[in-house]
């Protein structure tokens, strides 16, 4: 797969318009890697001038900060900002709402100010600009429900871009009872992804999965690699062997782009 790194580009004297911040999940998690690839295919298709940091990328520090380790977070942030500055980065897109929120909102006061986009925002723009053309057959009329990631929705008020993408493939968007600013968390945020949950009567991802299944949609659309894992696990635990799939919005678009351009 052709993915330019900033280092290679710099050696050629090139500066891309936009940095694709892949994130740890997008780089290492097997499920999330597929989302990364879908998104890269779309970037290539739309002929966007972009690059990735590759081995120079490091965690934004979000899970450390939310676990209370402000020290580790700031160490990560400051060294990331240094790398970003060395490549003169102005604009960043990422498939992870946690990276999105952290870089957009928490890096500026540490010295790193960028225009930061979530991949659903960029894809929405590319479709509106006609740079990505949708073939509507695959998902037309299919029921899709969308799970709002906390750090995209509540935290940053972005509810429309992912929904507009689902509309663009002419799918039948079925909202869950609690959606948008009232959406229930998948259970992964605040570093919960990396630990067992506290004692309770249910796992959060199971509760959210049940809400999603209740819409009768066969596709649960997510826009965050961690939500994707939590909901996929939820489906495995409650509806194993069912034909319900958890897909990132980028994968839905990737499967719907016209082959010609």
């Amino acid at each position, binding site marked *: 797969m052709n993915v330019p790194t900033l280092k290679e580009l710099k050696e050629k004297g090139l500066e891309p318009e936009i940095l694709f911040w892949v994130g740890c999940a997008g780089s290492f998690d097997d499920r999330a890697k597929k989302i990364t690839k879908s998104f890269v295919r779309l970037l290539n298709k739309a002929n966007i001038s972009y690059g990735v940091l590759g*081995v120079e990328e490091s965690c934004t520090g979000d899970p*450390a900060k939310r676990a209370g380790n402000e020290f580790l977070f700031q160490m990560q942030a400051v060294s990331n900002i240094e790398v970003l500055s060395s490549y003169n980065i102005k604009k960043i897109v990422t498939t992870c709402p946690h990276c999105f929120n952290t870089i957009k909102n928490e890096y500026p006061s540490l010295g790193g100010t960028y225009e930061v986009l979530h991949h659903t925002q960029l894809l929405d723009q590319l479709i509106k600009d006609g740079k990505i053309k949708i073939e509507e057959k695959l998902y037309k009329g299919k029921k899709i429900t969308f799970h709002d990631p906390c750090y995209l929705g509540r935290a940053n008020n972005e509810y429309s871009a992912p929904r507009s993408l689902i509309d663009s493939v002419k799918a039948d968007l079925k909202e869950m009872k609690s959606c948008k*600013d009232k959406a229930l968390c998948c259970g992964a945020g605040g570093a919960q992804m990396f630990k067992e949950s506290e004692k309770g009567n249910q796992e959060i991802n199971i509760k959210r999965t049940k809400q999603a299944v209740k819409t009768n949609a066969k596709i649960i659309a997510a826009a965050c690699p961690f939500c994707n894992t939590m909901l996929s696990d939820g489906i495995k635990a409650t509806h194993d062997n069912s034909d319900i799939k958890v897909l990132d919005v980028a994968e839905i678009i990737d499967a719907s782009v016209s082959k010609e351009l």
Partner: protein
Amino acid sequence: MSFLPSILFGFLLFLAIALFVFNCRKIYRNINLGKNIDRSDNKKVRLLKMFRLAFGQSKMLDKPVVGLLHLIVYVAFILINVELIEIIIDGLFGTHRFLAPYLGGFYDFLIGFFEILAFLVVISVLIFWIRRNILNIRRFISNDLKGWPKTDANYILYIELVLMFLFLNMNATDFYLQSSSFSEYYKSYGYFPISQYLVPIYSNFSDISVMYVERTSWWLHIIGILFFLNYLYYSKHLHILLAFPNTYFSNLDKIGKFDNLSSVFNEVKAMLDPSHDPFSTNNNQTEIEKFGASDVFDLNWFQLLNAYTCTECGRCSSECPANETGKLLSPRKIMMKTRDRLEEVGKNIDKNGKFIDDNKSLLNDYISKEELWACTTCNACVDSCPIGIDPLSIILDMRRYLVMEQSAAPSELNNMMNNLENNGAPWPFNQLDRLNWKN
């Protein structure tokens, strides 16, 4: 002898206001035990937010039915208190319905309007009582409210009912007396669309006993109001005042943005800067700041104001994913415990002149680690609060203390942080493999 009631009234009024001011100063002092945080910016935006949320109750209307009922009680509370001006004048100067001759027909309209409001309040309060005590609404039957909080909530409803009854009864008897042998004192003022239906109760009473009932109602009504004023300090009902400063000073940033501790930033800069001189003078000027919060002193004043402002409505906890799945964490409880601890510290200061260590702290004695570690930082609690309270910031500050001062994170999180520190990712993968996905 006619000036005796005036003196008694003046004395009661003074006593009530003095006690209220005394307690307000305590609240102010306690809130100022918190650390400083600058909320003096964007005055216009803040004012607008206050008007929208506190005056306009815009977020209360997210739940339309209870929102409307709450709006009725709130509007009635503000408007009926206009009548208080007259009651105070009458009380101090021994007049009766002092404003009536000046306002003429408008006075009749006002009294009629107040009566309708009072009637709507009675209906609303009855519905509130049924919701709280009979319908099994999760946020009201929750363990959070066991004991005093539930009693407090009901007391507020009872007090409101009694005050409205006294107000209407005072008018009913007044109306009766306007066409009695006391009509010389009870002139024909006011319009009584609601209380006229109470008049038949007194059909077998003598004029003089109705007058006693009228006077008693009048006195009990004002004493009730003065009592209620002083009850606020001991109650969640304090929100009727503090909702205003709380919304004004609330966070204007995106709620996903958590503050970057400046004390940490100084250390990080020092660590990364090779030219940094650890012995230079400006590093020694202050002692090393404690990271995060283990007690109310470590929180900022806005967080402490939040604690006094919380109305214990439970909208936060009913949206909290941890709470909804049976975990111990309840954002409402975080606010209630912070207030309890702050009150305890305040009493300690009252008693000793200054705070004497009581070997207790907000962490462990009030809020457990189990609660703190259950939070997903999803911000649902923050988003759902109608008056801009931020329980998440307290949870985060206490996590910071646990991790940075006590190294007391759950072991799985320590693993995650070790990975992050060594490999730049929360999992044990090599940073050099970061681009392997493209193969």
